């Protein structure tokens, strides 16, 4: 993977290659496509919508980048999101029953969310490292568990945040700061932090090491288990942040909330150029990946010309092509070997 980059560097003698700009190329291509399909695509309204939407998956995907870079995988994020939002709502509603609505209640909910996220992440990490069970199985298990728990809490129905609290909480999703919606701001902050942590801290570097060769890392005095567990906790935190901005949007949670988000998140990560087998990760690539995915959905809404039944086809084709675009560099370099 990364070898490609540096080999090319040597070849072209410059620090830029398809692999690095790839995601952007794909993004631009989609952008052009969008404009061609429908002028309205360019309207500030629409662009803001795209950005705001991508923030859910985006934030979760930032967390997933850590997990995957360290050679793990987390299938539970979608149900985790559902579970956390469910609990948030229940807690806030119970509080609302006792005290008068207000910022305090929301803060309580936010706090609960963060605690739950951390805990859920820790469980995944602990079972994987100490339990020595494949991450895939562990998170497949917790995936089912969290989802059924929210179904249970919601008694098969939908949990809705009570009106009063809702009105206090709503702005967190719908308001903006200097024209930038809050969710986008949060996404931005999370991405930047994620970038710094992954690329500028010991923890981040150890994620790379573990993902690329666990034994080498262990022999080099890296606390493999601790670092891996931490990646799942980071993932959990990201999920809780995502839910914190998700809840005020729809103000409810049900068994359906966040279905398949895990797939979208992982897709965003891989589209962004992170290697599924671990050892190489790129936060900003992930960000672009999330944008690409959201944009595809949006573009499908730009036109009525193709049957809705074929959405999946278009989506699939675009994803594959988008990734193909940015992997172009591979062609040459693979040959050399």
């Amino acid at each position, binding site marked *: 993977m990364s070898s490609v980059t540096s080999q090319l560097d040597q070849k072209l003698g410059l620090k830029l290659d398809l692999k690095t700009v790839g995601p952007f190329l794909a993004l631009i291509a989609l952008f052009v496509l969008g404009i061609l399909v429908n002028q309205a695509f360019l309207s500030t309204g629409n662009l803001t*919508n795209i950005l705001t939407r991508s923030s859910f998956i985006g934030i979760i995907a930032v967390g997933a980048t850590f997990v995957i870079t360290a050679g793990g995988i987390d299938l539970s994020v979608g149900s985790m999101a559902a579970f956390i939002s469910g609990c948030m709502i229940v807690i806030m509603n119970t509080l609302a029953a006792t005290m008068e609505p207000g910022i305090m209640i929301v803060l309580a909910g936010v706090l609960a969310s963060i605690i739950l996220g951390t805990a859920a992440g820790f469980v995944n990490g602990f079972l994987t490292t100490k339990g020595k069970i494949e991450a895939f199985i562990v998170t497949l298990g917790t995936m089912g568990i969290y989802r059924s728990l929210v179904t249970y809490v919601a008694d*098969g129905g939908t949990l809705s945040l009570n009106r009063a609290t809702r009105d206090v909480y709503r702005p967190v999703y719908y308001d903006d700061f200097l024209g930038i919606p809050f969710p986008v701001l949060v996404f931005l902050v999370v991405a930047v932090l994620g970038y710094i942590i992954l690329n500028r801290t010991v923890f981040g570097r150890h994620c790379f090491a573990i993902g690329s060769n666990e034994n080498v890392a262990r022999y080099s005095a890296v606390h493999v288990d601790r670092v891996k567990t931490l990646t799942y906790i980071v993932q959990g935190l990201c999920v809780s942040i995502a839910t914190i901005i998700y809840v005020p949007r*729809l103000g409810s949670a049900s068994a359906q*909330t966040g279905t398949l988000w895990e797939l979208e998140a992982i897709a965003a990560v891989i589209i962004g150029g992170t290697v599924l087998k671990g050892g190489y990760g790129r936060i900003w690539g992930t960000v672009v990946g999330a944008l690409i995915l959201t944009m595809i959905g949006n573009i499908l809404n730009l036109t009525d010309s193709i049957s*809705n039944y074929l*959405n999946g086809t278009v989506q699939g084709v675009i994803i594959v092509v988008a990734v193909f675009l940015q992997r172009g560099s591979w062609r040459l370099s693979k040959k050399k070997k």
Partner: protein
Amino acid sequence: DKFKIGVSIPTATHGWTGGVNFHAKETKARLEKVYPDLEIILVTAADPTAQANDLEDLVSIHAIDALVILPTDGGPLTDPIRRVKESGALVTVVDRALTDNTIHDVYVAGNNPELGAVSAKYIKKALGGKGNIVILRGLPIVIDEERFDAFMDGIKDTDIKVLDHKHANWNRDDGFTVMQDFLARFPKIDAVWAQDDDIALGVIEAVKQAGREDELFIVGGAGMKDIIKRVMDGDRLTPVDVLYPPSMISTAMEVTALKAVTGAPIKGEYIVGSPLITKENAKDYYFPNSPF
């Protein structure tokens, strides 16, 4: 310029929503032919989040003048729909109620509790008030909850015993497996409430496999053509069906379109009933060329 109606419905993930999609497309074509200066944009979403996205796009991109929506889930979509309303569009809600019933201009309501009640009423009568039944439920969401509660309410203080109820997710395969296990578990079952015709089809196969056709009968729901055909043919395994017409989307679209062209101020609620389909009236509900 043209009057734009946005139609937002759930993706065709199972029989009934498939029917909704079919009728929506068909009505779109028909209405656009009848009213030349009418444009209908049809979007489908798999879950509340996606549907909320669609609503945003319908407003920001297509600047719709009216919205016809069959919410994937009433609760979460209340707010997004309110925003569409605030954008000045006329709102027609179909089937599933919002948590705030001041938003819609028109509400074409399916009646989930009634479906449960009607089914209960029939089974109670057919069993003479006593017997063992099993229930196959849909997905664990509000609709299923409403139908189930109404049904249980309908059979309470009778000697009808619900041996067990499990979720079959409005899915034929799950209907098949769940019923297989019920049959393995319970030596004597007098009736099955499958609640949905997709599930019912799975159940029928399971029962046939076990060779217990003569022991019990099955009540489905929604009015899928295959089942209605069986009712029409007097199949004793499926003596009746309970209608829950996916065509309600057409009704909603027509009403809204009418408003669009006439400008007539229509407000109000249209309750789509859930009548019992029997051998006698079956032919009125049989549309062989519908995919549902």
